[in-house]
């Protein structure tokens, strides 16, 4: 899923300066699953904003709503009859939702309440970590299913570097050295010979370096 976390409250309050009527818009997809921008978080954020503004003598009207997702036209269209009523929409979706709202409602101020962090997993209650960098050119068949692009601090394709010690990454002992994990896993699978081949330089044009990406599936388009 896409993992995000709410921006610091003072940053959000700063964005809302002068705004008197906001729609705080949750997302029922990833943002709900990672407890950053679902119905519950919308409710909490709305009340924090109201209390703050009341204290400062500039009350604000908040409307709370959570869509099934913010990355599909059909759900965003639910707003079409009401969006003009607000000074701004504060989206609690990932950056994808914020963008799509802005694309769809050109005359409305759309603001982000979250920092979109990464594509990752929920390791345990309250702990998320990155697994995929979305580079557009998957190498996991060669690395035992573990991604050096997302999980090696230097995206090494011929690791591990000289800073791998006791299974940890040199930049932070809280980070596992993915190349140690790859080594261990390939050893367990009797595939260590895969590590003896030189991994060629990667084509980054399928990642963000090739410009914004788009997929068109002729078989599905109407």
């Amino acid at each position, binding site marked *: 899923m896409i993992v995000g976390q709410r921006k610091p409250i003072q940053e959000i309050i700063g964005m809302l300066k002068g705004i008197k009527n906001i729609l705080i818009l949750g997302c029922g997809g990833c943002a709900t699953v990672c407890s950053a921008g679902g119905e519950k978080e919308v409710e909490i954020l709305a009340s924090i904003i109201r209390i703050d503004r009341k204290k400062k003598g500039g009350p604000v009207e908040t409307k709370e709503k959570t869509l099934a997702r913010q990355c599909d036209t059909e759900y965003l269209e639910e707003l079409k009859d009401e969006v003009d009523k607000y000074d701004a929409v504060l989206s609690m979706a990932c950056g994808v939702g914020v963008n799509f709202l802005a694309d769809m409602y050109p005359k409305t101020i759309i603001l982000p309440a979250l920092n979109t962090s990464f594509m990752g997993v929920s390791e345990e209650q309250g702990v998320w970590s990155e697994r995929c960098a979305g580079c557009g050119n998957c190498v996991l068949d060669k690395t035992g299913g573990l991604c050096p692009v997302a999980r090696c601090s*230097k995206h090494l*394709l011929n690791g*591990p570097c*000289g800073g791998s*010690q*006791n299974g940890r990454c040199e*930049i932070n002992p809280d980070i596992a050295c993915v190349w*140690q994990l790859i*080594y261990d896993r390939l050893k367990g699978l009797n595939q260590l010979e895969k590590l003896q081949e*030189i991994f060629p330089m990667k084509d980054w044009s399928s990642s963000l370096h090739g410009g914004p990406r788009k997929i068109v599936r002729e078989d599905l388009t109407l």
Partner: protein
Amino acid sequence: MNSASNLKKVLASGQFAVTAELGPPKNADAEVIRTKAKLLSDCADAVNITDCQTAIVRMSSIASSVVMMQEGLEPVTQMTCRDRNRIAIQSDLLGAAALGVKNLLCLTGDHQQFGNHPNSTGVFDMDSIQLLQMVRMMRDEKVFQCGEEIKGKAPDFFLGAAANPFADPFEFRALRLAKKVAAGAQFIQTQLVYNVEKFAAWMKAVRDLGLHEKCYILAGVTPPKSIGMARYMKNNVPGMDVPDHVIARLKGAKDSKKDVQKEGINICVDIINMVKEIEGVAGVHIMAIEWESAVPEIAKQAGLLPRP
């Protein structure tokens, strides 16, 4: 112009080689390089010029190399993958070769988080092994990384790489060196050796793969300048292995700072003498960054002078 690298000549002749290391200044003063180069000029066959080591902004390694050459000293120019993509690296290497650089050490580079601009982008378009491969292809096949032909003069570098025998997983370290050699490494400078026993075990694995016959291996050494520095390397530098007996030896020195430094030099000389006896070790790389003045003394005591 463009006679072969002195370092290559010394190594090819079978003489035990000595390289040293020079960190460029954090300013635009060429005199800093000249002064350090003078200290090192009679005791090393070539001297590494670091490329913003530990991700701290310093004078460019290529520019510093040119200043060093003006002092009559041969540089081993370091090039990392942290700050440049394949376009910038190839462009800089054409320039370096045109300016007379003959030795190139290909490194991935320290992560930007360690340096003084931790908020910067880390480029890492390629890693050190891919960099070696790219530069070898530029030299031997006269092609840019994209496959386009280099029309005219191609850069001709004696190619080096680093190896850390003390990082994990230990059993993969010699195999990773084999990848570097296959990619194009002709000489190797290792991480600092304090644990000679482990280094010897790594060298055995290296010999078992026949790599000592395919590249020249220079053991990295440095004199510990203080007990604090030795402890810091032991506890805070990932991939460093400083056995307790090294620290105990420094502690055994008389109290004054000077005595500890003298013992640090003795330790370094002893390590050189030990690694010299290991089959397949072709030289030493004496890294005494910010203590360049120690290098002549170490080289002298280790019987490595005069240089050819």
